[in-house]
């Protein structure tokens, strides 16, 4: 069975074999012989939602919750014809998915939709494993993870691109959009995942998370440490709010843990080497 290791968790994902998936997941293949934390099967079976409808997002994506688990279903036509189906048990140890070919309707290809659906599953899955996904562009500099967080369009990727440019041998971009963060007895770790937004820049690597840096555009470069109170608001803006209420407490306690263990800085910056050095000097890296 095809096994993958993401954020030090083993995932078995079977029944999916297409160029897009194979390319994006190639780096995450593993021979790690631990029991997989989750088994995901892409099947031909066109299963139907179970439980109660929780909400509908964007007018077509239905979320269900029932005693046996959760479901995410993309409506193709009313009332119950679905073009994407995902169901997982309450502990997220097993999941099944079914994606129909809707290329005739235009829009995203099946390959991309399957990949994105796995990404959505992963956001819930990691909450069950003492972690969360933080919207940020994250680098590993030597052995220090730094997550640069900010609303879209601020220049996260531009900034991490500068790190790579000025320190090509010491910098790995772990994930340009959605790195995974996990807590263990050693502290906070940050990891690359295959889901990195539009840029497809990610690496199957990880590092202890040294800091979160919230970016703001400014003509001058300066950096200061945020209080936990200030940081809380910044970080919550960059964390996906789970649709299923059961996962909200897990998310909030992960955010709390993150804030209590990781320093958060605010960097006012332009696009320059000085911007990079401002962070590097402050973090004493």
């Amino acid at each position, binding site marked *: 069975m095809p096994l993958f290791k993401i954020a030090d968790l083993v995932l078995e994902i079977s029944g999916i074999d297409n160029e897009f998936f194979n390319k994006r997941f190639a780096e995450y293949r593993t021979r790690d012989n631990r029991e997989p934390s989750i088994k995901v099967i892409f099947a031909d079976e066109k299963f139907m939602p179970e439980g109660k409808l929780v*909400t509908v*997002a*964007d007018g077509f994506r239905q*979320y269900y919750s029932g005693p046996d688990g959760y479901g995410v279903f993309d409506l193709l036509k009313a009332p119950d014809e679905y073009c994407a189906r995902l169901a997982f048990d309450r502990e997220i140890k097993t999941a099944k998915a079914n994606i129909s070919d809707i290329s005739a309707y235009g829009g995203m290809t099946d390959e991309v939709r399957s990949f994105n659906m796995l990404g959505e599953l992963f956001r819930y899955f990691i909450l069950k494993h003492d972690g969360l996904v933080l*919207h940020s562009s994250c680098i590993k500099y030597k052995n220090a993870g730094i997550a640069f967080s900010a609303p879209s369009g601020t220049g996260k990727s531009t900034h991490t691109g500068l790190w790579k440019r000025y320190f090509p041998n010491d910098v790995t971009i772990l994930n340009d959009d959605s790195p995974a963060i996990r807590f263990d007895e050693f502290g906070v770790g940050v990891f690359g995942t295959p889901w990195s937004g539009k840029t497809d820049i990610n690496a199957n690597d990880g590092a202890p998370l040294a800091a979160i840096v919230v970016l703001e555009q400014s003509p001058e470069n300066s950096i200061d440490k945020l209080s*936990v*109170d200030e940081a*809380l*608001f910044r970080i*919550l*803006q*960059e*964390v*996906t*709010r789970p*649709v299923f*209420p059961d996962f*909200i407490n897990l998310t*909030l306690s992960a*955010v*709390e843990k993150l*804030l*209590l263990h990781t320093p958060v800085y605010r960097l006012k910056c332009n696009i320059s080497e000085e911007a990079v050095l401002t962070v590097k000097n402050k973090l004493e890296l």
Partner: protein
Amino acid sequence: MKIKNTFVLREIAGNRVVLPMGAPSDAFSGMMTLNETGAFLWKLLEKEISMEDLVNAMLAEYNVDSMQAQKDVDEFLDTLRKAGVLEE
């Protein structure tokens, strides 16, 4: 009046934070923090309650006179109205 059930109050890292739980959105946006009095009134407002009962509860809980209690309640309700949190 009462708080809409699409908002919840949670304590995170020592902050009393109001979080919207309604329609799906990308992040925990549109939050506010409450002080101790705000959180006290918020909890009462999770169930239907009148202005008068809120003021009386303030008087029973805190060492304030009725004018001050009325003023605090007014101000808090005003904040909640502006944030679209209150159902009247």
